[in-house]
């Protein structure tokens, strides 16, 4: 008798039907979706998947989302999606998608804004808002697989309510609140500055920066001033994605 489950084709890029295994509300506007993939393959932390939605009349919308999970989570990926008011894919995820639903995805894609573990260390990650998502894949993977590598995260958020992955942030993370720090907060407040980046990037050899274009411009300027080489500052800027 033939096997009923064929060997999964593993070439990245084929559309496959993922099943939503679980949904976690991270903040009022951000949710993380664990997707089970029939043709899963390990991604590099920092890579993204494309998501495709199809309406009954055949209309299709596609967007790209960074993977937030470590590739050690076999068979699954986690996508963390920020709901954008004028978007069409992110509001669908937030308002409609439930556990057990199916969505079409393909990936993993792009191999520049990735952390393999072979880059020079220490590594500093700088994330603004939901720009933390691909950086979290790197941090999670480092914690589980390469804890000896020095990696720190600088994470800029508006208020305490906007902190994604709040329960997982440890002493490898420095937070700064740009709008309103929580009561009793004695850490950093305000936007990125030379003091904050200078301290976090001291002796750092590689940096990954993700956030809005303005955030990334500021962060990469500060990293250059802190002595990082331009070729070791990798950036990912939000295009509008909704």
């Amino acid at each position: 008798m033939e096997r009923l489950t064929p060997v999964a084709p593993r070439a990245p890029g084929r559309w496959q039907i993922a099943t939503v295994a679980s949904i976690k509300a991270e903040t009022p506007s951000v949710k993380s979706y664990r997707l089970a993939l029939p043709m899963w393959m390990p991604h590099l932390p920092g890579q993204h998947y494309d998501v495709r939605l199809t309406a009954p009349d055949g209309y299709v919308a596609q967007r790209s989302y960074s993977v937030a999970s470590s590739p050690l989570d076999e068979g699954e990926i986690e996508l963390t999606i920020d709901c954008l008011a004028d978007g069409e894919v992110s509001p669908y995820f937030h308002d409609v998608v439930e556990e057990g639903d199916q969505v079409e995805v393909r990936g993993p894609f792009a191999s520049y804004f990735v952390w393999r573990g072979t880059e020079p260390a220490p590594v500093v990650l700088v994330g603004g808002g939901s720009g933390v998502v691909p950086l979290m894949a790197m941090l999670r993977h480092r914690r589980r697989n390469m804890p000896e590598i020095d990696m720190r995260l600088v994470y800029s958020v508006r208020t305490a309510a906007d902190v994604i992955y709040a329960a997982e942030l440890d002493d490898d993370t420095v937070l700064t609140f740009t709008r309103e720090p929580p009561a009793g907060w004695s850490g950093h407040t305000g936007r990125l500055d030379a003091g904050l980046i200078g301290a976090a990037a001291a002796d750092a050899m590689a940096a990954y920066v993700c956030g809005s274009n303005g955030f990334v411009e500021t962060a990469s300027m500060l990293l250059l001033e802190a002595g990082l080489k331009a070729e070791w500052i990798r950036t990912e800027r939000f295009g509008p994605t909704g």
Partner: protein
Amino acid sequence: MALFSRGFSGGRRVPPELADRVPPGQYVEHGFPVLTAGPTPRVDPDEWGLRIDGMVAEPRRWTAAQFRELPSEAVPCDIHCVTKWSKLGTSFTGVSVDVLLDAVEPLGPYAMAYSYGDYTTNLAIEDLSDGKAWVVTEHEGEPLAREHGGPARLLVPHLYFWKSAKWVAGLRIMDHDEPGFWETNGYHNRGDPWKEERYWND
């Protein structure tokens, strides 16, 4: 076979009169997003120059002042970014790559565009000639902003926009094809948005 998405109707559909200008999988964006893989290079507009070298009869470099003397034209176009947004009805001003190639006489069928800050992207001469590509210095009547590639970028609107190299410094003409920066990092070698050539296996 496509999976229909339960409860999805599509909240950002393109108006029917524009539908034939939006390639598959794209949506219309009214802003002009910035996507760059590293820090934004600073190129002094007076120091900028454009070189065409490699397999050519006569390598050439135009200084900024010499470049300004070349015939320039307005280029109304639609642009399509592989990250899914398209910007319709925008315009740039610059010099046709035909003018530049005529001056050097290319001897190979491929080119590598290279930029200040080490970015590269590969193109066939066929995609750079016959009124399909420009080196532009203005966007919608203003000097091209630094974050969008100023002082000058390549403009190849019929391909995904990563082919339109920002901060362009030159074209190296080659007898063979060779992948550039994004083409090495998982993106399609040619990048035709109408064929949805986004990634390696597309």
